[in-house]
């Protein structure tokens, strides 16, 4: 009890202050270092303008279900009734019948918006990254469907098994702070 009444000397205040400042500086330096190392890390991604939709992304990923999935740039989409990324080249009818669909796993959803426009979304759980829809969309449509490596799945292998076999060298290392190469933004 009596210690509490002992007044602090200026020297003690100065010493404690210096300790606090030093610790804060150490913490800030650590955080800055962590941020710097995070900023300088790189991840794999597919340049959609180099991708030729060869289907190797579906077969060469070390994961049994590829980390590569189809994504959709809605700003590029024509919202076509006859979507060539969704429908078989010669569909029997323009409806959601399985026999009319192009995707071998049925991973694309078609939703009516207003006559004559339809919206197409990717069910990522079903997509295997075979790029069949990417070829159909790019060949006949606006090319709004394209492949990207999903970083919630990618193991970021030092030597990516798909990058090794990619015939168009579309696999590139990108900064982890900008991990996606969206087709409508590059």
């Amino acid at each position, binding site marked *: 009890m009596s210690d509490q009444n002992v007044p602090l000397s200026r020297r003690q205040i100065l010493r404690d202050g210096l300790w606090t400042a030093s610790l804060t500086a150490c913490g800030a330096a650590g955080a800055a270092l962590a941020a710097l190392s995070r900023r300088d890390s790189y991840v794999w991604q597919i340049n959609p303008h180099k991708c*030729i939709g060869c289907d190797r992304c579906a077969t060469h990923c070390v994961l049994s279900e590829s980390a590569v999935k189809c994504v959709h740039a809605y700003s590029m989409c024509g919202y076509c009734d006859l979507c060539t990324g969704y429908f078989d080249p010669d569909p029997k009818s323009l409806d959601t019948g399985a026999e009319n669909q192009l995707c071998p796993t049925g991973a694309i959803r078609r939703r009516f918006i207003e006559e004559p426009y339809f919206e197409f979304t990717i069910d990522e759980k079903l997509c295997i990254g075979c790029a069949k829809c990417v*070829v159909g969309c790019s060949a006949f449509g606006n090319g709004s469907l394209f492949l990207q490596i999903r970083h919630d799945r990618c193991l970021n292998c030092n030597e990516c098994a798909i990058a090794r076999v990619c015939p168009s060298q579309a696999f590139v290392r990108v900064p982890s702070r900008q991990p996606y190469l969206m087709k409508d933004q590059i």
Partner: protein
Amino acid sequence: MKDRFGKINNGSAAVLLAIGAFAAGFTGYVLLDRANHSGKRAGADYRYPIEELAKIDPAKILYRQVGTAIETGMESAAAIEADWAGNFYVAGDRAVAVFSGDGSKRRDIPLVSEPTAIGVGEDGLIYAGLSDRIEVYSSDGQQVSAWAPIHTALLTAIAAGKTDVFAADALHKIVRRFDKQGNPLGLIGAKDPDRNIEGIVVPSPYFDLLIAPDGLLRVVNPGRHRIEAYTFDGYLEWHWGRPSVGLEGFSGCCNPIALAALPKGGYVTCEKGLVRVKVYDEEGNLVGVVAGPDQLGWQEPLRVCEKPEDCISRGLDAAVDGQGRIYVLDQSKNVVRIFEKK
């Protein structure tokens, strides 16, 4: 393994050697090829059969190319038109280039901005569409008039008649009608249930039209894969065309992208994606093929592009002269190919 004298049996040694070689080969394959899988591909169900679709029966190709492709000298050729005398006009690179039928350039008519459409009237006047406005030039390149700009428009085709000029506006998906002085007279093709007009669908900026010899407009409705016939007052008379990757129909999401009329009746259509130029009769029945992917130097739909703009798919435009020669502008290669009947 060893015989009773302690020597190694030759047969046993050979078996051991074979097993060793097999093990080495197997290990090598597993270790080396596991990271490569060079032969491993998805099955046919996972590939788009575009090469198969591109094949055309040679017997159905009724035209042949005259000479070699003519270089326009442009970096961004947008549209082509031909007159009855056999001259053809290419719009692009802030100019209209006038060529004679043999491919020699006669003159350049400079424009203030990038052209998006061109039309040539029977009186020889040249109508250049500059996105949202039209400028009129005489055949010797003198500016006759510059019409007032339209508030937001993307003019992709112009057809000039005796008293009216029609322009296809891909932005608003309508046809704009003007008089010869550029005064707006009306709009054609907008959705109108009372007139049984479903509306024009233009998913990509290709929207063509022409004035047919029967006095009606022919307007391409690419999103519905058909050609629609309208009166000048905007009444839809009939239409023809259907979607199909087969030769009879129009492939892809939105085709045809260009239309031209033959002097003896019938129409020339151009398709993008699976590039095809075909001839139909006046009722819309397929007559034959002018050129297919092989004749047009078609490349794979997906290719490696160093710059995003290299990947922008560009199409074809077509024009026909008085002798029935078909001029096909390849917008990606900036060349003109001339086809005549075999």
